[in-house]
């Protein structure tokens, strides 16, 4: 009998500072409401149908989400007209949406954009106003960071801002901009003489928004060709755009981790159902250890992913523990969802790699989620400073 690793507290502490996993009835209600909405209005078949039809998203559902549940305003503070939900609330929504691979503008508009805009709105009425319109479900926003082979690397952005304050113009190219061809607003991270900064693109004037084919069929994306196009800088004069981008990525990592949990757990659930009914060699295939052990490992990964995603969601953004949690979640959940999606296909056998079967949609989503905010290896590298704080005193600095 060996003890579980590091599982005992070494310092005296009161029992009342235990906050992680303190679920409330409100959490349960929110989850139920989103689950019901998704089940009736956006089951996985519907995501596929929307994708097949080439539609951007289901506009009616978008309105219902705003009017009945206020989901677009969940990540927007009350002071900006939102519902001021906690990160746990947003994560619960993302997990439920992940289960049915819900796509469209939700992630960019209701998760990425608020994560970027909230710190900017401290010193910028325009950003604050935009948050209000997001919360009301009145606008959609895309967030453009990725370039070349770098998905979210503020330090490597080459799109350049020129011109005097108030009349900046942007030149460069942005890739993998979710909802980038259709969103009403586009937020762009670009370099300036004083480092990276955030801009609101004038979408009426100039930017060529090239609609792309996407691996994840449920998440439309575009490439933006910015050829000296007008934009307005957001935030105060001292705003560190890279720090905002970094904080946004950490917050969004936790939400995305919850989405990955939803996807991975759903793959496990569907696969368990399949292997229980499918028979080969005179037995349900789920009775063969080759199948059961692979699926057990997948279930373990999904359980660990859930713990990691929600532990992080229960931390206070800005703390060391929050960064640790977000990075652990990004590393673990990204790889857990990807591996589970592959295993789901393998365990479905031939049917699992047909177009008509849904399994590949999870693999496609898993690949996107694993890349969008930076990869798992990069997240792990940043964890070094948490394990060895003496090694890198600037542990919380922007990478």
């Amino acid at each position, binding site marked *: 009998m060996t*003890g579980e*690793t590091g*599982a005992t*507290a070494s310092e005296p502490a009161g029992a009342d500072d235990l906050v992680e996993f303190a679920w409330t009835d409100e959490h349960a209600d929110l989850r139920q409401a989103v689950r019901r909405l998704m089940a009736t209005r956006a089951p996985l078949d519907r995501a596929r149908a929307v994708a097949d039809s080439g539609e951007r998203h289901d506009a009616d559902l978008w309105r219902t989400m705003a009017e009945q549940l206020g989901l677009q305003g969940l990540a927007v503070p009350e002071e900006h007209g939102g519902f001021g939900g906690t990160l746990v609330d947003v994560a619960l929504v993302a997990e439920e949406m992940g289960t049915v691979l819900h796509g469209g503008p939700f992630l960019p508009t209701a998760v990425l954009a608020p994560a970027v805009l909230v710190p900017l709105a401290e010193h910028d009425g325009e950003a604050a106003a935009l948050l209000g319109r997001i919360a009301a479900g009145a606008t959609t926003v895309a967030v453009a960071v990725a370039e070349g082979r770098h998905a979210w690397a503020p330090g490597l952005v080459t799109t350049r801002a020129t011109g005097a304050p108030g009349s900046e113009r942007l030149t460069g190219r942005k890739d993998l901009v979710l909802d980038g061809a259709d969103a009403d607003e586009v937020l762009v991270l670009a370099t300036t003489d004083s480092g990276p900064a955030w801009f609101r693109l004038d979408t009426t004037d100039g930017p060529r928004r090239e609609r792309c084919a996407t691996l994840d069929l449920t998440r439309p994306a575009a490439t933006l060709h910015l050829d000296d196009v007008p934009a307005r800088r957001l935030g105060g004069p001292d705003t560190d755009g890279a720090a905002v981008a970094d904080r946004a990525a950490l917050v969004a990592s936790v939400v995305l981790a919850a989405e990955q949990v939803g996807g991975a757990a759903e793959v496990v659930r569907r696969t368990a159902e399949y292997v229980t009914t499918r028979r080969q060699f005179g037995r349900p295939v789920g009775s063969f250890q080759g199948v059961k052990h692979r699926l057990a490992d997948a279930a373990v990964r999904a359980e660990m992913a859930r713990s990691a995603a929600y532990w992080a969601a229960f931390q206070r953004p800005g703390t060391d523990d929050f960064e640790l949690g977000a990075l*652990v979640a990004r590393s673990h959940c990204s790889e857990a969802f990807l591996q589970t999606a592959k295993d789901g296909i393998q365990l479905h056998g031939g049917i699992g790699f047909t177009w008509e079967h849904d399994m590949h949609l999870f693999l496609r989503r898993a690949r996107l989620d694993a890349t969008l905010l930076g990869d798992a290896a990069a997240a792990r590298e940043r964890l*070094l400073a948490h394990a060895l704080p003496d090694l890198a005193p600037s542990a919380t600095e922007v990478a």
Partner: protein
Amino acid sequence: MPVDLSPDATEAEAYAAADAWVREHLPADVLKAALGAEWPEVAAFVADPERSTPWFAALGDAGLSSPTWPCEHGGLGLSAASAGAVTEAVTQYRVGRTMADFVGLALAGPTIIAHGTAAQKERFLGPLARGEHRWCQLFSEPGAGSDLAGLSTRAEQQADGTWVVNGQKVWSSFAHLSDFGLLMARTDPSLPKHRGITYFLVDMTTPGVEARPLRQMTGHAEFNEVFLTEVELPADAVLGELNGGWAVAITTLMQERNGLTGRPAVGDGKADELLRRAHGNGSLEEPVLRDRLLRMLVEERALQMTTLRAYAEAGRGAAGAEGSVRKLVNAQLEEEAGALAAEVDPLTALSWPAGGAVPAPVEEFLAMKTTSIAGGTSEIQRNIIAERLLGLPKDPDPEKDKPFSERPRTS
């Protein structure tokens, strides 16, 4: 005298009461050492029977070693959550009962509470709570490893109602130091294998009981083989129903898997220790090794978070297979930690001054497989997870319903 706590006490109340009790009753020098984090001194106190025996007796009388047990049997009747707070309050000073008492407190006690007669409870629970008896488990056998119910040890009832036991058990921790043992033996081989087993409480001083240490690949002997030769047991050694031992054993096994001891924490672990070593000797500069260490850090933190989640959610009905999830992941981490220890310090792990202490990387490397085999192999944990958590069908067992005596023998 039990500490003054209602069975309905909240976690905070339970913690406060236990904390106050320990501060009041712990010998002053030990309390001072604990508050000053002078752990070697505290450990010396616990290791000294002269001093720790009366301390554990007092702790037991206060109900603090067995807070979930019924009040009439040395417990406080607390909920799992409040009991956890008690354990945590004691554990913070590192003066709680040791791992050598795990079988007694975590397995024997709850099993006796669930299945024992009034006389058995009276006889065993008080001394258990007070640390007077040490217990061991006599379940596994050489011929029945993962397939516990395939055990061959025979107990035959005599005309006078007493029993005679013959057989061999293995993987018994602390058996050579134990006063009592939890024994499963076959009492009716004409029944299918799960149905002909009876559960006994064995006095380890009974003639014919012989424990021999079993040396592991590490060179240490943490386990024992126990030989049972014409061991006579009284009629009241039976726990639970005659031939109903499997159900009793399930109680024990479930306790074994769920046995959290105090509030789990998310923080410094084995991966951190290995990262420090790698930083110390320069091997942290090797990017592939570094990423493996960081990957272990991620998995270890995720396991800690999972353990914490299980603990926090336990009040709301934890799944029985959750313990298997944690044991499986822990086994994988132990294996990876052992492998990495050798890679961080490759030459240290390969040779060291003859006669000197065996270096940590060597111990860790050689122990890497322990958790993935002992206490139920990782394969068995995966089966449990697949069958209980996911509802997958069981593997066919062609002998499940056959009389035990008709099965083919293993070599």
